[in-house]
Protein backbone atom coordinates (compact mmCIF):
# COMPACT_ATOMS: atom_id res chain seq x y z
CA UNK A 1 0.00 0.00 0.00
CA UNK A 2 1.08 3.53 -0.66
CA UNK A 3 2.45 5.34 2.40
CA UNK A 4 0.15 8.14 1.45
CA UNK A 5 -2.78 6.02 2.59
CA UNK A 6 -1.85 5.14 6.14
CA UNK A 7 0.66 7.14 8.15
CA UNK A 8 3.45 5.58 10.16
CA UNK A 9 2.24 5.57 13.72
CA UNK A 10 4.39 7.49 16.18
CA UNK A 11 4.43 4.62 18.69
CA UNK A 12 6.07 1.26 18.11
CA UNK A 13 3.74 -1.70 17.99
CA UNK A 14 6.30 -4.18 19.19
CA UNK A 15 6.24 -3.92 22.96
CA UNK A 16 2.68 -4.02 24.19
CA UNK A 17 3.32 -5.18 27.75
CA UNK A 18 5.68 -2.31 28.33
CA UNK A 19 3.32 0.20 26.73
CA UNK A 20 0.51 -1.00 28.95
CA UNK A 21 2.53 -0.50 32.06
CA UNK A 22 4.02 2.89 31.31
CA UNK A 23 1.87 5.83 30.30
CA UNK A 24 3.15 7.16 26.96
CA UNK A 25 3.94 10.83 26.44
CA UNK A 26 1.44 11.07 23.57
CA UNK A 27 -2.19 10.36 24.40
CA UNK A 28 -3.26 6.72 23.96
CA UNK A 29 -5.18 5.82 20.83
CA UNK A 30 -8.14 4.76 22.97
CA UNK A 31 -8.78 5.48 26.62
CA UNK A 32 -11.94 4.30 28.37
CA UNK A 33 -12.69 5.00 32.01
CA UNK A 34 -15.69 3.56 33.80
CA UNK A 35 -17.49 3.34 30.47
CA UNK A 36 -21.04 2.24 31.11
CA UNK A 37 -23.93 1.84 28.73
CA UNK A 38 -27.34 0.73 29.88
CA UNK A 39 -30.38 -0.16 27.81
CA UNK A 40 -33.14 0.01 30.38
CA UNK A 41 -32.02 -2.27 33.22
CA UNK A 42 -29.56 -4.21 31.09
CA UNK A 43 -25.94 -3.07 31.20
CA UNK A 44 -24.28 -3.56 27.80
CA UNK A 45 -21.08 -2.03 29.22
CA UNK A 46 -20.38 -2.07 32.93
CA UNK A 47 -17.51 0.23 33.89
CA UNK A 48 -15.06 -0.64 31.13
CA UNK A 49 -11.46 0.41 31.81
CA UNK A 50 -9.19 0.16 28.79
CA UNK A 51 -6.15 1.85 27.32
CA UNK A 52 -4.87 1.07 23.83
CA UNK A 53 -1.43 2.46 22.99
CA UNK A 54 -0.74 4.23 19.72
CA UNK A 55 0.56 1.86 17.06
CA UNK A 56 -0.99 -1.34 18.44
CA UNK A 57 -2.94 -3.84 16.42
CA UNK A 58 -5.41 -4.40 19.18
CA UNK A 59 -7.85 -7.30 19.37
CA UNK A 60 -11.06 -6.63 21.25
CA UNK A 61 -12.24 -10.10 22.01
CA UNK A 62 -15.46 -11.35 23.48
CA UNK A 63 -18.41 -13.66 23.00
CA UNK A 64 -21.50 -12.43 21.15
CA UNK A 65 -23.33 -9.84 23.22
CA UNK A 66 -20.29 -8.99 25.36
CA UNK A 67 -20.47 -5.29 24.47
CA UNK A 68 -17.85 -5.04 21.70
CA UNK A 69 -20.10 -3.35 19.16
CA UNK A 70 -21.49 -0.97 21.78
CA UNK A 71 -17.94 0.10 22.66
CA UNK A 72 -17.09 0.70 19.01
CA UNK A 73 -20.32 2.63 18.44
CA UNK A 74 -19.45 4.91 21.34
CA UNK A 75 -15.91 5.42 19.99
CA UNK A 76 -17.36 6.23 16.57
CA UNK A 77 -19.76 8.81 18.03
CA UNK A 78 -22.81 6.73 17.07
CA UNK A 79 -23.97 6.10 20.64
CA UNK A 80 -23.62 7.90 23.96
CA UNK A 81 -22.41 6.28 27.17
CA UNK A 82 -24.67 6.26 30.21
CA UNK A 83 -21.63 6.99 32.40
CA UNK A 84 -17.85 7.16 32.19
CA UNK A 85 -15.62 8.62 29.52
CA UNK A 86 -14.21 7.61 26.15
CA UNK A 87 -11.30 9.39 24.51
CA UNK A 88 -9.71 8.88 21.11
CA UNK A 89 -6.17 10.20 20.70
CA UNK A 90 -6.77 12.56 23.60
CA UNK A 91 -10.14 13.85 22.38
CA UNK A 92 -13.32 13.17 24.32
CA UNK A 93 -15.63 11.47 21.81
CA UNK A 94 -18.70 13.01 23.43
CA UNK A 95 -17.67 16.62 22.90
CA UNK A 96 -15.09 16.61 20.10
CA UNK A 97 -17.34 15.69 17.13
CA UNK A 98 -15.63 16.30 13.81
CA UNK A 99 -12.21 16.58 15.52
CA UNK A 100 -12.39 12.90 16.44
CA UNK A 101 -14.08 11.77 13.24
CA UNK A 102 -11.30 13.34 11.17
CA UNK A 103 -8.78 11.06 12.93
CA UNK A 104 -10.57 7.74 12.71
CA UNK A 105 -11.57 5.21 10.11
CA UNK A 106 -14.65 3.18 10.98
CA UNK A 107 -16.00 -0.09 9.64
CA UNK A 108 -19.24 -1.41 11.16
CA UNK A 109 -19.95 -5.15 11.27
CA UNK A 110 -22.33 -4.90 8.30
CA UNK A 111 -21.27 -1.87 6.24
CA UNK A 112 -24.06 -0.17 4.29
CA UNK A 113 -23.09 1.25 0.92
CA UNK A 114 -24.94 3.23 -1.72
CA UNK A 115 -25.63 0.36 -4.10
CA UNK A 116 -25.82 2.62 -7.14
CA UNK A 117 -22.20 3.80 -6.78
CA UNK A 118 -19.08 1.98 -7.95
CA UNK A 119 -16.23 1.28 -5.52
CA UNK A 120 -14.16 4.15 -6.94
CA UNK A 121 -17.11 6.53 -6.69
CA UNK A 122 -17.78 5.53 -3.10
CA UNK A 123 -14.13 6.04 -2.13
CA UNK A 124 -14.14 9.48 -3.81
CA UNK A 125 -17.31 10.32 -1.92
CA UNK A 126 -15.81 9.14 1.39
CA UNK A 127 -12.63 11.14 0.74
CA UNK A 128 -14.71 14.20 -0.15
CA UNK A 129 -16.34 14.03 3.29
CA UNK A 130 -12.84 14.45 4.76
CA UNK A 131 -12.19 17.44 2.49
CA UNK A 132 -9.29 15.79 0.63
CA UNK A 133 -7.95 17.72 -2.33
CA UNK A 134 -8.26 16.27 -5.83
CA UNK A 135 -4.66 15.08 -6.20
CA UNK A 136 -4.63 13.32 -2.81
CA UNK A 137 -8.03 11.83 -3.50
CA UNK A 138 -6.96 10.45 -6.87
CA UNK A 139 -3.81 8.86 -5.41
CA UNK A 140 -5.57 7.35 -2.40
CA UNK A 141 -8.52 6.00 -4.35
CA UNK A 142 -6.15 4.23 -6.74
CA UNK A 143 -4.00 2.85 -3.90
CA UNK A 144 -6.97 1.67 -1.86
CA UNK A 145 -8.72 0.04 -4.80
CA UNK A 146 -5.50 -1.83 -5.36
CA UNK A 147 -5.26 -2.79 -1.67
CA UNK A 148 -8.85 -4.03 -1.69
CA UNK A 149 -8.30 -5.95 -4.95
CA UNK A 150 -11.07 -3.88 -6.54
CA UNK A 151 -9.00 -2.01 -9.13
CA UNK A 152 -10.70 -2.22 -12.50
CA UNK A 153 -14.03 -3.35 -11.05
CA UNK A 154 -16.56 -1.08 -12.75
CA UNK A 155 -19.71 -2.81 -11.46
CA UNK A 156 -21.98 -1.05 -8.99
CA UNK A 157 -21.63 -1.99 -5.31
CA UNK A 158 -25.11 -3.53 -5.31
CA UNK A 159 -23.72 -6.45 -7.31
CA UNK A 160 -20.73 -7.14 -4.99
CA UNK A 161 -20.20 -10.27 -2.91
CA UNK A 162 -20.00 -9.98 0.87
CA UNK A 163 -16.21 -10.28 0.72
CA UNK A 164 -15.89 -7.49 -1.85
CA UNK A 165 -18.09 -5.24 0.29
CA UNK A 166 -16.03 -6.00 3.38
CA UNK A 167 -12.78 -5.21 1.56
CA UNK A 168 -14.31 -2.00 0.25
CA UNK A 169 -15.40 -1.30 3.84
CA UNK A 170 -11.81 -1.52 5.06
CA UNK A 171 -10.66 0.61 2.12
CA UNK A 172 -13.20 3.39 2.80
CA UNK A 173 -12.13 3.39 6.45
CA UNK A 174 -8.56 4.12 5.31
CA UNK A 175 -9.34 6.95 2.88
CA UNK A 176 -8.34 9.66 5.39
CA UNK A 177 -5.14 7.84 6.43
CA UNK A 178 -6.67 7.49 9.91
CA UNK A 179 -4.57 7.50 13.06
CA UNK A 180 -7.03 5.00 14.53
CA UNK A 181 -8.85 2.34 12.56
CA UNK A 182 -11.96 0.92 14.26
CA UNK A 183 -13.11 -2.39 12.80
CA UNK A 184 -16.17 -4.19 14.13
CA UNK A 185 -16.12 -7.93 13.42
CA UNK A 186 -14.64 -7.39 9.94
CA UNK A 187 -14.37 -11.11 9.17
CA UNK A 188 -17.33 -12.65 10.95
CA UNK A 189 -19.52 -13.35 7.92
CA UNK A 190 -16.82 -14.09 5.37
CA UNK A 191 -15.80 -17.35 3.75
CA UNK A 192 -12.19 -18.52 4.33
CA UNK A 193 -10.84 -16.73 1.25
CA UNK A 194 -12.65 -13.48 2.01
CA UNK A 195 -11.47 -13.74 5.62
CA UNK A 196 -7.87 -14.23 4.56
CA UNK A 197 -8.04 -11.24 2.22
CA UNK A 198 -9.40 -8.92 4.91
CA UNK A 199 -6.89 -10.19 7.50
CA UNK A 200 -4.07 -9.63 5.01
CA UNK A 201 -5.25 -6.03 4.61
CA UNK A 202 -5.26 -5.54 8.38
CA UNK A 203 -1.88 -7.20 8.81
CA UNK A 204 -0.46 -4.87 6.16
CA UNK A 205 -1.41 -1.89 8.35
CA UNK A 206 0.72 -2.99 11.33
CA UNK A 207 3.13 -0.22 12.25
CA UNK A 208 1.33 2.35 10.08
CA UNK A 209 -1.76 3.04 12.11
CA UNK A 210 -3.44 1.90 15.32
CA UNK A 211 -5.99 -0.84 14.63
CA UNK A 212 -8.79 -1.56 17.12
CA UNK A 213 -10.32 -4.76 15.91
CA UNK A 214 -13.31 -6.44 17.56
CA UNK A 215 -14.02 -10.10 16.94
CA UNK A 216 -15.06 -13.36 18.47
CA UNK A 217 -12.84 -15.35 16.09
CA UNK A 218 -9.75 -16.24 18.10
CA UNK A 219 -7.69 -17.40 15.15
CA UNK A 220 -8.03 -13.94 13.55
CA UNK A 221 -6.75 -12.28 16.70
CA UNK A 222 -3.78 -14.62 16.96
CA UNK A 223 -2.92 -13.90 13.36
CA UNK A 224 -2.93 -10.12 13.31
CA UNK A 225 -3.05 -8.66 16.83
CA UNK A 226 -0.21 -7.97 19.25
CA UNK A 227 -2.33 -6.93 22.23
CA UNK A 228 -5.81 -8.00 23.25
CA UNK A 229 -8.53 -7.33 25.75
CA UNK A 230 -11.22 -9.85 26.58
CA UNK A 231 -14.64 -8.40 27.21
CA UNK A 232 -17.37 -10.41 28.87
CA UNK A 233 -20.78 -9.18 29.97
CA UNK A 234 -19.70 -5.59 29.58
CA UNK A 235 -16.50 -5.89 31.61
CA UNK A 236 -12.85 -6.21 30.61
CA UNK A 237 -11.71 -9.49 32.17
CA UNK A 238 -8.19 -9.52 30.70
CA UNK A 239 -5.93 -7.04 28.94
CA UNK A 240 -2.42 -7.93 27.87
CA UNK A 241 -0.20 -9.10 25.06
CA UNK A 242 -1.22 -12.49 23.65
CA UNK A 243 2.01 -14.11 24.86
CA UNK A 244 1.62 -12.79 28.41
CA UNK A 245 -2.00 -13.90 28.53
CA UNK A 246 -1.02 -17.36 27.44
CA UNK A 247 1.71 -17.40 30.09
CA UNK A 248 -0.56 -16.24 32.87
CA UNK A 249 -3.70 -18.17 31.98
CA UNK A 250 -4.54 -21.69 30.95
CA UNK A 251 -5.07 -24.27 33.67
CA UNK A 252 -1.52 -25.16 34.69
CA UNK A 253 1.29 -25.44 32.16
CA UNK A 254 2.09 -28.27 29.82
CA UNK A 255 5.11 -30.20 28.71
CA UNK A 256 5.44 -32.46 25.69
CA UNK A 257 7.68 -35.48 26.30
CA UNK A 258 8.80 -38.16 23.88
CA UNK A 259 10.65 -41.25 25.23
CA UNK A 260 11.28 -44.71 23.84
CA UNK A 261 8.56 -46.25 26.08
CA UNK A 262 5.82 -43.69 26.83
CA UNK A 263 3.66 -46.20 28.74
CA UNK A 264 6.37 -46.69 31.35
CA UNK A 265 6.95 -42.98 31.72
CA UNK A 266 3.20 -42.41 32.15
CA UNK A 267 3.26 -44.89 35.02
CA UNK A 268 6.37 -43.32 36.54
CA UNK A 269 5.04 -39.75 36.58
CA UNK A 270 1.39 -40.44 37.44
CA UNK A 271 1.92 -40.19 41.19
CA UNK A 272 4.29 -37.20 41.22
CA UNK A 273 2.82 -34.25 43.18
CA UNK A 274 3.48 -31.66 40.45
CA UNK A 275 1.78 -33.70 37.70
CA UNK A 276 -1.91 -32.82 37.32
CA UNK A 277 -2.77 -34.77 34.18
CA UNK A 278 -1.09 -37.24 31.83
CA UNK A 279 -2.36 -37.60 28.25
CA UNK A 280 -0.86 -39.90 25.65
CA UNK A 281 -0.94 -39.41 21.91
CA UNK A 282 1.15 -42.02 20.09
CA UNK A 283 4.74 -41.76 21.25
CA UNK A 284 4.13 -38.36 22.87
CA UNK A 285 3.06 -37.70 26.44
CA UNK A 286 1.44 -34.39 27.28
CA UNK A 287 1.91 -33.57 30.96
CA UNK A 288 -0.16 -30.83 32.58
CA UNK A 289 1.87 -29.67 35.55
CA UNK A 290 1.09 -27.42 38.49
CA UNK A 291 4.72 -26.25 38.96
CA UNK A 292 6.56 -25.83 35.68
CA UNK A 293 10.05 -24.95 37.05
CA UNK A 294 10.02 -28.03 39.32
CA UNK A 295 8.79 -30.21 36.47
CA UNK A 296 11.50 -28.95 34.12
CA UNK A 297 14.15 -29.64 36.80
CA UNK A 298 12.97 -33.06 37.95
CA UNK A 299 11.54 -34.70 34.82
CA UNK A 300 14.89 -35.55 33.15
CA UNK A 301 15.96 -37.27 36.41
CA UNK A 302 12.70 -39.25 36.55
CA UNK A 303 13.23 -40.38 32.93
CA UNK A 304 16.83 -41.38 33.63
CA UNK A 305 15.84 -43.23 36.80
CA UNK A 306 13.28 -45.23 34.82
CA UNK A 307 15.99 -46.16 32.31
CA UNK A 308 14.20 -44.46 29.43
CA UNK A 309 15.78 -42.61 26.50
CA UNK A 310 14.67 -38.98 26.20
CA UNK A 311 13.94 -37.91 22.62
CA UNK A 312 12.02 -34.67 23.09
CA UNK A 313 11.11 -32.36 26.00
CA UNK A 314 9.47 -29.01 25.35
CA UNK A 315 6.83 -26.64 26.69
CA UNK A 316 3.44 -27.04 25.00
CA UNK A 317 1.87 -23.71 24.12
CA UNK A 318 -1.53 -22.97 25.62
CA UNK A 319 -3.90 -21.85 22.89
CA UNK A 320 -5.71 -18.54 22.97
CA UNK A 321 -8.93 -20.51 22.83
CA UNK A 322 -8.07 -22.20 26.12
CA UNK A 323 -7.27 -18.84 27.69
CA UNK A 324 -10.52 -17.41 26.36
CA UNK A 325 -12.58 -20.32 27.64
CA UNK A 326 -10.90 -20.06 31.02
CA UNK A 327 -11.57 -16.31 31.28
CA UNK A 328 -15.10 -16.29 29.95
CA UNK A 329 -16.11 -19.77 31.11
CA UNK A 330 -15.18 -19.08 34.75
CA UNK A 331 -17.48 -16.07 34.81
CA UNK A 332 -20.30 -18.05 33.20
CA UNK A 333 -20.01 -20.73 35.89
Amino acid at each position, binding site marked *: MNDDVAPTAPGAPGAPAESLAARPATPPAVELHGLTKRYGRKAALDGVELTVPVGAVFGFLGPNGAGKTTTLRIL*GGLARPTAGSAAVLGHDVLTAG*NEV*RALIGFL*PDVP*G*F*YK*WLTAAEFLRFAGGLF*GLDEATLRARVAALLDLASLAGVEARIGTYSRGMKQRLGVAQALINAPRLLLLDEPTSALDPIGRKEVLDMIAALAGRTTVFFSTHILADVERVCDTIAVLDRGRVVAHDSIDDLKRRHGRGQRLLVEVDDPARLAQAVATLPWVALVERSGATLRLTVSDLPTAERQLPAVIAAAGLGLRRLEADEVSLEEVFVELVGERRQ
Partner: protein
Amino acid sequence: MSAFSTFLGKERRETLRTWRLWILPGILLFLALSSPVLTRLTPELLKATANSQPGVVIHVPPPTARDSYVQFMGNLGQLVIIAVIIAGAATISAERRAGTAVLVLTKPLSRAGFVVAKAVSQLVVLVGATVLGVAVCIATTVALFGSGSIAPFLEAAALWLAFAAMILMLMVMLSAAMRSQAPAAGAGIGLWILLALFTGFPLIRDHSPAGIIAANDAALTGRDVALLWPLATTTIAGAVFLAAAIWFFRRREL
Protein backbone atom coordinates in the same frame (compact mmCIF):
# COMPACT_ATOMS: atom_id res chain seq x y z
CA MET B 1 -14.95 20.82 -0.91
CA SER B 2 -16.73 20.67 2.46
CA ALA B 3 -18.37 17.55 3.86
CA PHE B 4 -21.77 19.22 3.46
CA SER B 5 -21.31 20.01 -0.24
CA THR B 6 -19.88 16.52 -0.86
CA PHE B 7 -22.94 14.96 0.75
CA LEU B 8 -25.24 17.31 -1.15
CA GLY B 9 -23.47 16.24 -4.36
CA LYS B 10 -24.15 12.61 -3.46
CA GLU B 11 -27.82 13.48 -2.98
CA ARG B 12 -27.92 15.12 -6.42
CA ARG B 13 -26.36 12.07 -8.04
CA GLU B 14 -28.68 9.75 -6.15
CA THR B 15 -31.66 11.73 -7.41
CA LEU B 16 -30.45 11.45 -10.99
CA ARG B 17 -29.45 7.78 -10.84
CA THR B 18 -32.23 6.18 -8.82
CA TRP B 19 -36.01 5.94 -8.68
CA ARG B 20 -36.16 9.20 -6.78
CA LEU B 21 -36.01 11.15 -10.05
CA TRP B 22 -39.17 9.52 -11.35
CA ILE B 23 -41.59 9.52 -8.42
CA LEU B 24 -42.60 13.15 -7.86
CA PRO B 25 -41.66 14.53 -11.30
CA GLY B 26 -43.29 11.51 -12.93
CA ILE B 27 -46.55 11.95 -11.01
CA LEU B 28 -46.62 15.69 -11.65
CA LEU B 29 -45.87 15.25 -15.33
CA PHE B 30 -48.63 12.67 -15.69
CA LEU B 31 -51.15 14.91 -13.92
CA ALA B 32 -50.04 17.98 -15.89
CA LEU B 33 -50.80 16.14 -19.14
CA SER B 34 -53.90 14.24 -18.04
CA SER B 35 -55.74 17.01 -16.14
CA PRO B 36 -56.31 19.31 -19.21
CA VAL B 37 -57.15 16.33 -21.41
CA LEU B 38 -59.68 14.97 -18.90
CA THR B 39 -61.20 18.44 -18.48
CA ARG B 40 -61.53 18.73 -22.25
CA LEU B 41 -63.14 15.29 -22.58
CA THR B 42 -65.44 15.43 -19.53
CA PRO B 43 -68.46 17.00 -21.35
CA GLU B 44 -68.19 14.48 -24.19
CA LEU B 45 -67.97 11.61 -21.69
CA LEU B 46 -70.99 12.87 -19.77
CA LYS B 47 -72.98 13.34 -22.99
CA ALA B 48 -72.11 9.80 -24.07
CA THR B 49 -73.27 8.48 -20.70
CA ALA B 50 -76.50 10.46 -20.88
CA ASN B 51 -77.23 9.30 -24.46
CA SER B 52 -77.06 5.68 -23.36
CA GLN B 53 -79.92 6.32 -20.90
CA PRO B 54 -83.12 7.48 -22.69
CA GLY B 55 -84.77 10.54 -21.16
CA VAL B 56 -81.64 11.77 -19.43
CA VAL B 57 -80.37 15.13 -20.58
CA ILE B 58 -77.22 16.65 -19.14
CA HIS B 59 -76.27 20.25 -19.84
CA VAL B 60 -72.58 20.84 -19.27
CA PRO B 61 -71.11 24.26 -19.94
CA PRO B 62 -68.12 24.15 -22.29
CA PRO B 63 -64.91 23.63 -20.26
CA THR B 64 -62.46 26.50 -19.94
CA ALA B 65 -58.76 26.87 -19.25
CA ARG B 66 -59.63 27.71 -15.65
CA ASP B 67 -61.41 24.34 -15.27
CA SER B 68 -58.25 22.66 -16.48
CA TYR B 69 -56.15 24.46 -13.87
CA VAL B 70 -58.70 23.71 -11.13
CA GLN B 71 -58.56 20.02 -12.06
CA PHE B 72 -54.74 20.03 -11.90
CA MET B 73 -54.66 21.90 -8.59
CA GLY B 74 -57.20 19.47 -7.14
CA ASN B 75 -54.88 16.60 -7.99
CA LEU B 76 -51.90 18.44 -6.53
CA GLY B 77 -53.77 19.01 -3.28
CA GLN B 78 -54.45 15.31 -2.79
CA LEU B 79 -52.46 12.82 -4.89
CA VAL B 80 -49.22 14.75 -4.94
CA ILE B 81 -49.36 15.64 -1.24
CA ILE B 82 -49.75 11.92 -0.47
CA ALA B 83 -46.74 11.21 -2.72
CA VAL B 84 -44.74 13.91 -0.89
CA ILE B 85 -45.68 12.33 2.44
CA ILE B 86 -44.73 8.80 1.39
CA ALA B 87 -41.46 9.81 -0.30
CA GLY B 88 -40.55 12.19 2.54
CA ALA B 89 -41.18 9.54 5.18
CA ALA B 90 -38.04 7.69 4.07
CA THR B 91 -35.76 10.75 3.96
CA ILE B 92 -33.70 9.94 7.06
CA SER B 93 -34.93 6.50 8.10
CA ALA B 94 -33.94 4.87 4.79
CA GLU B 95 -30.27 5.82 5.26
CA ARG B 96 -30.41 4.68 8.86
CA ARG B 97 -31.95 1.31 8.02
CA ALA B 98 -29.61 0.71 5.08
CA GLY B 99 -26.59 1.37 7.30
CA THR B 100 -25.30 4.10 5.00
CA ALA B 101 -25.81 6.75 7.69
CA VAL B 102 -23.24 4.96 9.89
CA LEU B 103 -20.51 5.13 7.26
CA VAL B 104 -21.28 8.78 6.51
CA LEU B 105 -21.66 10.00 10.09
CA THR B 106 -18.39 8.47 11.28
CA LYS B 107 -16.75 10.95 8.91
CA PRO B 108 -16.60 14.72 9.46
CA LEU B 109 -20.21 15.46 8.50
CA SER B 110 -22.37 16.74 11.33
CA ARG B 111 -25.81 15.32 11.96
CA ALA B 112 -27.29 18.77 11.30
CA GLY B 113 -25.49 18.85 7.94
CA PHE B 114 -26.81 15.38 7.14
CA VAL B 115 -30.43 16.37 7.86
CA VAL B 116 -30.21 19.73 6.08
CA ALA B 117 -28.63 18.18 2.96
CA LYS B 118 -31.35 15.51 2.83
CA ALA B 119 -34.08 18.16 3.26
CA VAL B 120 -32.54 20.49 0.66
CA SER B 121 -32.23 17.73 -1.93
CA GLN B 122 -35.85 16.67 -1.42
CA LEU B 123 -36.95 20.30 -1.61
CA VAL B 124 -35.06 20.83 -4.88
CA VAL B 125 -36.81 17.79 -6.38
CA LEU B 126 -40.18 19.11 -5.17
CA VAL B 127 -39.59 22.60 -6.60
CA GLY B 128 -38.23 21.22 -9.89
CA ALA B 129 -41.11 18.79 -10.26
CA THR B 130 -43.64 21.52 -9.50
CA VAL B 131 -42.11 23.93 -12.01
CA LEU B 132 -42.08 21.17 -14.64
CA GLY B 133 -45.67 20.15 -13.87
CA VAL B 134 -46.97 23.72 -13.93
CA ALA B 135 -45.18 24.50 -17.21
CA VAL B 136 -46.49 21.34 -18.89
CA CYS B 137 -50.00 21.94 -17.55
CA ILE B 138 -50.00 25.49 -18.92
CA ALA B 139 -48.70 24.32 -22.32
CA THR B 140 -51.27 21.50 -22.55
CA THR B 141 -54.09 23.78 -21.42
CA VAL B 142 -53.15 26.47 -23.95
CA ALA B 143 -53.00 23.83 -26.68
CA LEU B 144 -56.46 22.48 -25.81
CA PHE B 145 -58.31 25.60 -24.69
CA GLY B 146 -56.41 28.51 -26.20
CA SER B 147 -54.70 31.21 -24.21
CA GLY B 148 -56.24 32.39 -20.95
CA SER B 149 -55.13 34.17 -17.80
CA ILE B 150 -52.49 32.10 -16.09
CA ALA B 151 -51.73 34.49 -13.20
CA PRO B 152 -54.34 32.98 -10.80
CA PHE B 153 -53.02 29.51 -11.60
CA LEU B 154 -49.44 30.56 -10.93
CA GLU B 155 -50.49 32.12 -7.63
CA ALA B 156 -52.37 28.95 -6.61
CA ALA B 157 -49.42 26.76 -7.63
CA ALA B 158 -47.00 28.94 -5.61
CA LEU B 159 -49.26 28.68 -2.55
CA TRP B 160 -49.47 24.90 -2.99
CA LEU B 161 -45.69 24.70 -3.26
CA ALA B 162 -45.30 26.57 0.04
CA PHE B 163 -47.73 24.16 1.69
CA ALA B 164 -46.06 21.08 0.13
CA ALA B 165 -42.64 22.31 1.27
CA MET B 166 -43.94 22.57 4.83
CA ILE B 167 -45.39 19.06 4.59
CA LEU B 168 -42.00 17.86 3.31
CA MET B 169 -40.23 19.38 6.34
CA LEU B 170 -42.84 17.72 8.57
CA MET B 171 -41.95 14.40 6.93
CA VAL B 172 -38.22 15.00 7.36
CA MET B 173 -38.89 15.52 11.05
CA LEU B 174 -41.07 12.40 11.36
CA SER B 175 -38.47 10.41 9.42
CA ALA B 176 -35.78 11.51 11.87
CA ALA B 177 -37.98 10.82 14.89
CA MET B 178 -39.34 7.43 13.85
CA ARG B 179 -37.62 4.14 13.11
CA SER B 180 -39.03 3.43 9.66
CA GLN B 181 -40.94 4.81 6.72
CA ALA B 182 -44.36 3.27 7.39
CA PRO B 183 -45.14 4.82 10.81
CA ALA B 184 -43.74 8.16 9.66
CA ALA B 185 -45.99 8.09 6.58
CA GLY B 186 -48.98 7.11 8.72
CA ALA B 187 -48.36 9.96 11.14
CA GLY B 188 -47.84 12.37 8.23
CA ILE B 189 -51.14 11.45 6.59
CA GLY B 190 -52.90 11.77 9.94
CA LEU B 191 -51.51 15.26 10.53
CA TRP B 192 -52.35 16.32 6.97
CA ILE B 193 -55.97 15.18 7.41
CA LEU B 194 -56.11 17.06 10.72
CA LEU B 195 -54.85 20.18 8.96
CA ALA B 196 -57.51 19.77 6.26
CA LEU B 197 -60.17 19.49 8.97
CA PHE B 198 -59.00 22.84 10.39
CA THR B 199 -60.29 24.54 7.22
CA GLY B 200 -63.76 24.10 8.72
CA PHE B 201 -62.86 26.34 11.70
CA PRO B 202 -62.37 29.90 10.40
CA LEU B 203 -60.38 31.19 13.37
CA ILE B 204 -57.87 28.35 13.19
CA ARG B 205 -57.89 28.28 9.37
CA ASP B 206 -57.11 31.98 9.00
CA HIS B 207 -54.18 31.81 11.44
CA SER B 208 -52.56 28.52 10.45
CA PRO B 209 -51.17 26.65 7.41
CA ALA B 210 -54.72 25.32 6.88
CA GLY B 211 -55.43 28.77 5.44
CA ILE B 212 -53.22 27.90 2.47
CA ILE B 213 -55.53 25.03 1.50
CA ALA B 214 -58.49 27.40 1.44
CA ALA B 215 -56.49 30.19 -0.22
CA ASN B 216 -55.61 27.82 -3.03
CA ASP B 217 -59.22 27.56 -4.19
CA ALA B 218 -59.76 31.28 -3.67
CA ALA B 219 -56.79 32.17 -5.88
CA LEU B 220 -58.17 30.10 -8.77
CA THR B 221 -61.66 31.51 -8.48
CA GLY B 222 -60.42 35.08 -8.14
CA ARG B 223 -61.61 35.62 -4.55
CA ASP B 224 -59.48 37.75 -2.26
CA VAL B 225 -58.23 36.09 0.96
CA ALA B 226 -55.81 37.24 3.61
CA LEU B 227 -52.56 35.32 3.13
CA LEU B 228 -50.24 36.88 5.70
CA TRP B 229 -51.03 34.56 8.61
CA PRO B 230 -51.26 31.32 6.60
CA LEU B 231 -48.01 32.04 4.74
CA ALA B 232 -46.18 33.20 7.86
CA THR B 233 -47.29 30.19 9.93
CA THR B 234 -46.48 27.81 7.06
CA THR B 235 -42.96 29.23 6.76
CA ILE B 236 -42.41 29.17 10.52
CA ALA B 237 -43.81 25.64 10.80
CA GLY B 238 -41.46 24.44 8.02
CA ALA B 239 -38.45 25.95 9.81
CA VAL B 240 -39.55 24.52 13.17
CA PHE B 241 -40.00 21.05 11.65
CA LEU B 242 -36.50 21.19 10.14
CA ALA B 243 -34.99 22.31 13.46
CA ALA B 244 -36.90 19.55 15.25
CA ALA B 245 -35.63 17.01 12.71
CA ILE B 246 -32.06 18.02 13.55
CA TRP B 247 -32.84 17.83 17.28
CA PHE B 248 -34.34 14.35 16.98
CA PHE B 249 -31.53 13.05 14.78
CA ARG B 250 -28.79 14.39 17.07
CA ARG B 251 -30.28 12.40 19.92
CA ARG B 252 -30.78 9.22 17.97
CA GLU B 253 -28.22 6.45 18.39
CA LEU B 254 -27.17 4.67 15.23
